[in-house]
């Protein structure tokens, strides 16, 4: 028992509730938000360090022991993601301060921002499948509010699709949970793993696992990403960045958890299917990324490519590939937030969204241009930026297991990423400037500094891989050896 485990979910939850009461006082809301982020980040870091010393931590809510009660389980994998989430959310808050506008701030922007964070952190931490469903719902409900906040026509159009598709997938989620509970009689993840191993993963359980695969693919944007580019380009920049950075990652996390902890007995069926879906996702994402001329669409399709790329690691399922996937997940949360911020800032500055209508931005905003260049390098996976190590390790894992098709598609998709972003870079930043002296919009410091912070973060993450190495290898080890996780959860002495 260790109550600190619930802190990364509890602090944002309390903050969100308090901020509802402070509706008219925007300054206090901002101040409390920052304070809360710092506290959450501190707690997350403390937990991560504690795991290194004491192994996987567990908290039984209300003292009800697993498998009957709700448990929160903190292992290195989940805590690395929680920590990254909180830090990225903190930087995005600063961007929101200067860009979101008073009207939206007064309509409970900050409370829902923190409710979203509550859901995301809860999903990462929970050790119970039904609780995962609840945390998903908390996250999705807040995202419904955030996507419609402001009520522009395009937002409402896209949000109807977004809400409909997510309701459908939540319904499937519930259905899959009911099937699973009816079959093996438990929903605690560690207990599920034990029971599935005991009875063997027969055809029935494999079909249930595929149902889960469909559910989380819808959330993560694996193959079933048709809803994603539209919805992610509708809301204001700070919110779009939050979605692009975090929401698909929660789905990816759930896929990793379920297919390494519970349904790992029939890799010929499930993991092959994941591999095929990953390949199709990368192909589709690459086509989308080079087909559109709207920056927001290009950026959204880049999210799709990354989802496919990360899931190749799950299809390969080796320890090296897992390490790569974890590095890449952390990197991708950072860099997608930066990419969305840059795209949004460019649209804010020029008032245009099509790449052929912009040009010469680097003359007016040199730092913005260079930041975009850094993003481009980092996303493609060029050292010393953070994308490099993840790509190398996933590639190494693919070669070790002989999955050459996955390897080829994954690395060719990187070239498409490079091309799609170079197209933005060359069209928008090079050439004659379109902005005359009178139309020059001052780039606010509050917008530029968060972008710069992300730019520095990707460099630091790239150079400081060594410091993360112990945590990541522990996380990958736990993922590949489910018994470590099971023992930590079901050991009633702890």
């Amino acid at each position, binding site marked *: 028992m260790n109550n600190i485990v619930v802190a990364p979910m509890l602090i944002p939850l309390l903050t969100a509730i308090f901020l509802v*009461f402070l509706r008219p006082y925007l300054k206090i809301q901002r101040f409390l938000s920052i304070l809360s982020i710092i506290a959450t980040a501190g707690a997350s870091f403390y937990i991560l360090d504690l795991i290194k010393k004491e192994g996987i931590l567990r908290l039984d809510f209300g003292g009800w022991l697993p498998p009957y009660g709700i448990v929160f389980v903190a292992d290195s994998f989940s805590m690395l993601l929680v920590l990254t989430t909180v830090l990225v959310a903190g930087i995005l808050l600063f961007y929101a301060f200067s860009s979101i506008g008073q009207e939206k701030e007064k309509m409970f922007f900050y409370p829902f921002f923190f409710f979203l964070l509550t859901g995301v952190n809860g999903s990462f931490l929970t050790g119970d499948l039904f609780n995962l469903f609840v945390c998903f719902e908390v996250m999705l409900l807040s995202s419904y509010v955030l996507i419609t906040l402001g009520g522009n026509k395009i937002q409402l159009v896209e949000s109807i699709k977004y809400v409909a598709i997510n309701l459908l997938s939540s319904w499937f989620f519930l259905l899959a949970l009911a099937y699973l509970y009816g079959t093996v009689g438990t929903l605690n993840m560690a207990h599920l793993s034990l029971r599935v191993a005991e009875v063997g993963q027969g055809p029935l359980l494999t079909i249930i696992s595929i149902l889960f695969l469909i559910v989380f693919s819808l959330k993560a944007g694996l193959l079933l990403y048709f809803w994603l580019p539209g919805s992610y380009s509708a809301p204001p920049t700070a919110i779009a960045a939050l979605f692009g950075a975090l929401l698909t990652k929660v789905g990816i996390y759930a896929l990793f958890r379920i297919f390494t902890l519970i349904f790992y007995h029939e890799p010929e069926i499930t993991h092959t299917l994941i591999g095929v879906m990953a390949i199709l996702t990368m192909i589709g994402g690459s086509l989308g990324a080079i087909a559109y001329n709207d920056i927001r669409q290009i950026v959204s399709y880049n999210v799709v490519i990354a989802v496919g790329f990360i899931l190749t690691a799950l299809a390969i399922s080796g320890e090296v590939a897992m390490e790569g996937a974890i590095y890449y997940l952390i990197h991708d949360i950072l860099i997608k937030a930066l990419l969305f911020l840059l795209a949004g800032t460019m649209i804010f500055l020029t008032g245009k969204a099509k790449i052929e209508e912009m040009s010469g931005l680097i003359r007016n905003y040199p730092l913005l241009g260079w930041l975009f260049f850094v993003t481009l390098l980092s996303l493609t996976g060029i050292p010393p930026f953070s994308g490099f190590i993840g790509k190398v390790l996933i590639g190494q894992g693919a070669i070790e297991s002989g999955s050459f098709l996955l390897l080829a598609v994954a690395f060719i998709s990187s070239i498409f990423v490079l091309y799609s972003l170079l197209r933005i870079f060359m069209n928008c930043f090079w050439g004659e400037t379109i902005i005359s002296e009178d139309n020059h919009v001052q780039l606010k410091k509050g917008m530029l500094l968060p972008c710069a912070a992300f730019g520095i973060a990707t460099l630091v993450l790239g150079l400081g891989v060594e410091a993360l190495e112990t945590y990541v290898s522990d996380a990958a080890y736990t993922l590949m050896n489910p018994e470590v996780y099971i023992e930590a959860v079901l050991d009633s002495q702890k």
Partner: protein
Amino acid sequence: MKINDVILRTVTKIVVFIILTFGVELFFSGHNDPGGGFIGGLVLSSAFVLLYLVFDIETVHRGVPFDFKKIAAFGAFLAVFTGIGGVLFGEPFLTQAFGLFDLPILGPTELASVLLFEAGVAFTVVGVVVTIILSISKDV
């Protein structure tokens, strides 16, 4: 044309109290029987919704001058707060406690901290349901 709804108004004035009493009854019975904060809260909020339907929003607001969004937030706070209570005593998050107390009029009574948690749930449900009904009743 004004609709003649004397019967509806008169009946409502009495029925609202019956619904409210039933809601409270459901809320308390939830400790050992079917019922509880969520169901009790739904019934309580149905009383408010009936009031809003029969009388107009302004009239009801004069009688019940609360911001229901804040009631929802207060309920959520109450529920989370009882969870933290356990943490303060060194127990796991959400641990509930109960004990027997000798109260002046009621005699020996079992008091449980889960009652506060359930009250939080009930407040949240009332706040959210009424807010939803009020929001969709407004013309855009």
